[in-house]
């Protein structure tokens, strides 16, 4: 479904992605992890062209999405993207957040969009919050609305950019539960996350990135129990003992 071929990306003179080659199949759940600045967010942001690339090609369903002339809006409207900072539209209710795009893009009538939005909010456990504004919701609830908003595009592919990193610990579970449900329903998902439990339970594969390269590809069990690359070993050790990593402990 997705194919990276020799993808390179620079920010000025800094190379953020180095010779990325990877294939992701339909229905696969892939977890991308790695230290901050390793290029993992950049990697998934190239998939809906929030970031341009300078070398190589990226194909989705056989189509080169970075080719000139690609309809970028059509591409994005078929990929769900969930941000670390939620980025809900604060001037709109939860329901309106979910109906905005389908109506503006002319896919659904306002009535159909509202019906779909209610169903999606129900699916993420927030049917009773349809008329709440984002500021009236907790972080976990906001992120679940953001997932519903992305699902309103009926996307065959969902991208998650550290969806639980901005959440208080007690809210992580509710968001992961929604993501687990999606994975079980066969959604193709690429998740940048450090949630080991989530990775072990639902991921088909783990990609470990550092310095803009994919250094290791493994099943979750192999990756977390027997990392091969020295950097991966260090990383797994650090996230197992979070307090041992920083100075002064």
């Amino acid at each position, binding site marked *: 479904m997705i194919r990276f071929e020799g993808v390179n990306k620079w920010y000025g003179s800094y190379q953020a992605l180095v010779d990325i080659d990877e294939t992701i199949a339909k229905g696969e759940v892939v977890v991308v992890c790695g230290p901050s600045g390793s290029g993992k967010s950049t990697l998934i942001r190239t998939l809906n062209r*929030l970031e341009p690339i300078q070398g190589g090609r990226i194909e989705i369903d056989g189509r080169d999405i970075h080719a000139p002339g690609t309809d970028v809006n059509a591409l*994005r409207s078929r990929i769900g*993207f969930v941000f670390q900072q939620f*980025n809900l539209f*604060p*001037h709109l209710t939860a329901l309106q957040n979910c109906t*905005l795009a389908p109506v503006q893009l002319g896919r659904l009538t306002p009535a159909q969009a509202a019906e779909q939005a209610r169903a999606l909010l129900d699916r993420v456990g927030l049917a009773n919050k349809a008329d709440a504004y984002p500021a*009236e919701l907790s972080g976990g609830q906001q992120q679940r609305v953001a997932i519903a908003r992305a699902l309103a*595009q009926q996307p065959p592919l969902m991208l998650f950019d550290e969806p639980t990193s901005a959440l*208080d610990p007690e809210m992580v579970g509710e968001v992961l539960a929604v993501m687990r449900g999606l994975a079980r329903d066969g959604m193709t998902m690429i998740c940048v996350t450090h949630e080991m439990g989530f990775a072990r339970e639902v991921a088909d594969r783990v990609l470990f990135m550092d310095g803009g390269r994919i250094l290791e590809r493994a099943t979750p069990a192999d990756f977390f129990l027997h990392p091969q690359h020295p950097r991966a070993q260090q990383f797994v050790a650090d996230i197992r003992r979070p307090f041992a990593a920083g100075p002064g402990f």
Partner: protein
Amino acid sequence: MRDLIDTYWLYFLVGQYPKGPLGGLALTVLLAALALLLAMPLGLALGVARLSLWRAVRWPVTALVFVVRGTPLLMVVFWAYFFLPTLTGYKTGQFSTMLIALVVFDGVYLAEIVRAGIVGLGRGQMEAARSLGLTHFQALRSVVLPQALRHMLPSLVNQFVSTIKETSLGYIIGLSEVSFIATQINTQVFTKPAQVYLCLGVAYFVLCFGLSRLAYGIESRGKRRPPPRVPA
């Protein structure tokens, strides 16, 4: 003071109207209102153009902003008065001349306010809207501008109040707005300049204060909706 007002109040308010052209305070209000109504869409368009992804749009607008911002309004009025007719081959009246000058001048200042409002909102909202497949303009219209305009309101009001005061420069090209009329009255009465210009000052103050209060009312009504919260 009393007979000054008794004699000249109608002249002060409407000029020679209905025997002659409309003037006085009424003309000032009309000029300011039209200038605001026309400058705001221009400011929105220029502000959005300043952030355009296309250089062909961004550069000329940026140049215009820098030129106009680096020039006193009086200069812009002179250009509109002396230079524009030679360009168009068509003599514009004093009212239209002043209106054009105000719309261009304020449009540019409003454009910078609009630009700051959009930039100040941060990239996240635009990215979220674009990642749903909305076009740049759909994202601006439904997501970015509704929020940015609320943040801009105090600065916009500031500029609107300036516009009211700037209409007084119409005096220079003989437009019979309220400052011009006040000067006429002062010439006729001759002995009471303090009283005449006090009345003029009060008239401007009432207009500007009224607009500020109106804007304040709109602002606090908008606040009933929960304000955007920065996620933790």
